[in-house]
């Protein structure tokens, strides 16, 4: 079983009230030096069977038609490499 991650973020030109609320709060919490925050969604999909090109294409279609609202959002699909230890450095494929 492999995990595919779909990141969905508002397009850069679209207002992101959530990210802004976070950013405005940071200095008040004593954290300086963060010049911008954007908040989006992360989906983790567990795929049965091999994650070959066909499967990835299908997931990209899911992302495009369903997980993201492409009127206002961009998305990014990538395979998450098996991580025995999530703290370890791991190389990743980015689609």
């Amino acid at each position, binding site marked *: 079983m492999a995990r595919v991650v779909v990141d969905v973020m508002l397009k850069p030109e679209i207002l992101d*009230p*959530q990210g802004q*609320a*976070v950013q405005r*709060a940071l200095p*008040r*919490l004593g954290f300086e030096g963060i010049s911008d925050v954007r*908040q989006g969604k992360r989906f983790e999909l567990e795929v049965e069977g091999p994650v070959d090109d066909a499967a990835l294409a299908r997931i990209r279609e899911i992302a495009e038609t369903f997980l993201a609202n492409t009127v206002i959002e961009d998305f990014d699909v990538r395979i998450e490499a098996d991580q025995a230890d999530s703290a370890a450095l791991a190389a990743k494929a980015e689609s």
Partner: protein
Amino acid sequence: MTVRVGVITFPGTLDDRDTQRAVRVAGLEAVPLWHRDKDLKQVDAVVLPGGFSYGDYLRAGAISRFSPVMESVIGQAKAGMPVLGICNGFQVLTETHLLPGAMLRNNHLHFICRDQKLRVENAETAWTRSYEQGQEINIPLKNIDGRYVADERVLDELEAEGRVVFRYRDVNPNGSLRDIAGITNEAGNVVGLMPHPEHAVEPLIGTGRTDGLGFFTSILKKLVDA
């Protein structure tokens, strides 16, 4: 004796004016408190009202928790001052860890507004003395992040110590674990619940019932008895 109840306004708080009204209807004095002020103006009790503080944009209650006024509230709550968190206020109380657990998106994922039946499970907290153990009350519920969760150990502890103060009856409107609608801290002075007693203090208005008035008269009882 006049009992002074502070009602906090955070940016995005909605039910502050309603809560002040409820406090007045119960015969107490309502004292507006502002999130930027540490000064609690010598109130005898504090209510954190409902709403969408900071839009609930990160998580409900997450940003308000860091406000100056909350520093004072946390200190006073630990010293025994009665604190009531309604809806968003309950969420703030869990975010500050004055109350255990957390509030998540409703299991059906929608905002829900309904008349909700509750069972009073603990009539000895600072905010429930006007009720009887086991009494059923009906007050409005309205939220999108109302699903109470905590781990099993915490839930067992809450049950064992009688700290589940309200449970949903007839319908569990949001998937809260063990039908929990409201809880209290160990000392019984801090209470949080999702439904809105302040919307049920006058006949005709809202549900047309006055089942919520008891919260505010309880605090009078508690402070006069003390």
